[in-house]
């Protein structure tokens, strides 16, 4: 261990390779600007930066700590929803109607139920046998669930009938983005408490499930999110296109997203080179050794899991405010979980520059792949009918887009097999 000030142990060649790759990426971005116009390309870059924030979040979970999270979509959508709730203008009809006091009462019941269940689950502290505590906790939880849902039903019905939805708090966007991180982090804390002591597979299964449940809840909770009606428009942290024009507004948004990304990355790099980061790597590479040295393995893992999830929530909020529409069904596993996995493992796990590089590259390829797939398949349709008299199915276009699912899966398996370190591998300091 020579400390943070030592020169990188890696020779100059990987550095040149990195510079070459980054130059190629910049050339690709310039090409998109030239072909598609500035407004389109800037939009793509804003979305790519939001994805890069999320990818950095995943990178610290996977690359620093080896935590296998396949519920990224859940943290993104939870963060987005939290930010929407904070920043959308106040809905006076809700506060004036009968729904507000009913909802308040239901929330108090929820809080009370949580406290009671928590107290019962701690019954061992007063000497009750374990089996009794487990059984009574489960029974009390079921009863509490029934009571709380019975309290919520009239409230949500009243809100949906009277005010439509509860609106927001009308706070500045910054407050929304902070809330996004906090909510995603809180969800991660609960999951982490349950799964982090067990093996990685359990975490994968649990995160996969919680993501589906969060999405189902937000999709069906019309009183909170207007469900399929979507919440729109969402406020922007910078002047909107209506005020200063598309290009300027998007450019400002891009600068903001890029600043957040750079600050987050620099802070993480700093922490990673500090003793905390060395401890993280030690735990990832040899858990038994680290724990026998007295490192708190579960505690450190929890830190990084929550931190990564907060970044995912923040990225989700950045993404949703930019599109200005919150539609829970618009968040899908493919775009918001597996695409990010491809970004991280292709870029090189354990390396934040790699994650950012992967995010921008993969997002450009992903955006461009839609017209490319459609063109390719209509070409196949024309040639097939001209040469062999093949009659293409009517839904060829929707099938063509499914090709991208296949390509994502193929990329994951190929990278794992042939380039497990990604294109910008983690640079180890010795």
């Amino acid at each position, binding site marked *: 261990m020579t400390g943070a000030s030592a020169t990188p142990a890696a020779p100059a060649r990987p550095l040149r390779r990195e510079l070459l790759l980054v130059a190629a990426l910049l050339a690709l971005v310039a090409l998109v600007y030239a072909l598609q116009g500035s407004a389109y390309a800037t939009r793509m870059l804003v979305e790519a930066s939001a994805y890069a924030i999320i990818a950095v979040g995943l990178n610290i979970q996977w690359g620093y700590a*080896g935590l*296998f999270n*396949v519920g990224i979509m859940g943290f993104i959508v939870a963060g987005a929803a939290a930010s929407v709730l904070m920043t959308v203008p106040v809905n006076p009809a809700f506060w004036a109607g009968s729904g507000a006091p009913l909802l308040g009462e239901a929330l108090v019941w929820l809080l009370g139920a949580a406290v009671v269940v928590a107290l019962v689950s701690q019954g061992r502290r007063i000497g009750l046998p374990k089996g009794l505590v*487990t059984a009574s906790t*489960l029974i009390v939880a079921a009863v509490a669930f*029934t009571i709380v849902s019975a309290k919520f039903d009239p409230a949500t019905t009243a809100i949906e009938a009277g005010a439509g939805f509860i609106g927001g708090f009308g706070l500045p966007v910054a407050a929304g983005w902070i809330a996004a991180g906090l909510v995603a982090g809180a969800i991660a804390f609960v999951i982490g408490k*349950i*799964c982090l002591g*067990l*093996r*990685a*597979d*359990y975490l*994968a*299964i*649990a995160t*996969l*499930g*919680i993501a*589906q*449940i969060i999405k*189902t*809840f937000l999709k*069906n909770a019309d009183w909170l999110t207007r469900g399929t009606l979507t919440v729109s428009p969402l406020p922007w942290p910078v002047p909107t296109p209506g005020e200063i024009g598309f290009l300027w507004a998007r450019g400002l948004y891009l600068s903001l997203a890029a600043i957040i990304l750079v600050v987050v990355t620099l802070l993480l790099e700093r922490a990673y080179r500090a003793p905390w980061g060395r401890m993280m790597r030690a735990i990832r590479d040899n858990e038994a050794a680290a724990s026998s040295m007295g490192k708190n393995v579960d505690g450190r893992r929890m830190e990084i899991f929550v931190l990564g999830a907060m970044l995912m929530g923040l990225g989700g909020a950045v993404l949703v405010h930019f599109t200005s529409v919150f539609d829970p069904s618009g968040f899908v596993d*493919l775009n918001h979980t*597996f695409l990010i*996995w491809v970004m991280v*493992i292709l870029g090189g796990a354990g390396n934040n520059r790699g994650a950012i590089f992967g995010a921008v590259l993969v997002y450009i390829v992903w955006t461009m792949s839609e017209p490319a797939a459609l063109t390719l398949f209509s070409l196949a349709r024309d040639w097939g009918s001209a040469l062999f008299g093949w009659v293409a*199915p009517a*839904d060829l276009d*929707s*099938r063509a887009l*499914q*090709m*991208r*699912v*296949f*390509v*994502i*899966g*193929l*990329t*994951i*398996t190929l990278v*794992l*097999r042939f380039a*497990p370190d990604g294109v910008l591998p983690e640079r180890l300091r010795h």
Partner: protein
Amino acid sequence: MDELIFFINRGVVGGLIIGSVYALGAVGVTLIFGILRFAHFAHGDMMTASAFIALALAAILSSLGITLPIPLVLALLPVVMVLTALFAIGLDRAFYRPLRKRGAKPVVLVMASIGVTLMLQGLIRLFAGTGSRDMYLDAPKTIFRIPTGGRPIVLTEPQVALIALTVLSVVALHLFLTRSRLGKAMRAVSDNPDLARVTGIPIERVVKATWAIGGGLAAIAGTMLAMDVQLKPDLAYNILLPIFAATILGGIGQPYGAIAGGYLIGFAETLAVFNFSVLLRPFRDLLPAGFEIPASLAMVPTEYRLVVPFFILVAVLIYRPTGIFKGRVF
């Protein structure tokens, strides 16, 4: 009385059917988890793929003008099982074995299986479209009505076949695991791979057998589920979480636990969304005045069905990570 029959039709039969599907899937997942030590996320899509193989074969036969007294898909099931077993072995050869040989961590295998899931989903949708299909090509589904005096108990042909086949496979699996050499070797590898290796058990054969059994059972579950409802490309994606919940509830590496877990999850899910106010309706007149039976007495609304296996999973992970049958925790 009619209300009770309604409960049997919806609650008991529904739980039995979905429970059988979960049980058959979970046996495969638990064997793979126990022997290869990773959670196989592509299991659900292997089920969908098997249903598509069945449909494609049946379509070919039916276009040749072949008809049988039983549905073609059902008659073709043994062939489909063999093909799916071969397919599963092929998946292992192409994607998982190279990683194992390199000594990759189990979590890398999990990730590879997610890659395989996406590939299968993409391919299935590319070749079969995104719409849903009926597995019955020529004749409509046979429906059995068992008369009870009032409303009959209704069972469809695939439901009867699924229950019969599940019982048959469980018995066959039990005999295989306890009587045959290979089955005993599988249990040995699952219990202690290092000890099994040094005693000269052929690991590669055991791995192959694991995939073949997992694939064959997935073929039964996938085909029957597709026959019972409809064949949709994302059919299996939603049952992946319940299958994992059943596996962990039963204890990893415990085939009998997986079966019990599958039925427990299946019944819990079905009964949680069942509207119990139907059952109380006959006692309406017995209630004191002023008491009304609420219109809906379901524990969870139907759209939150997936929440039930998830919460069972969480409760198991908190209180008994070894599952009910004392499986292993990795």
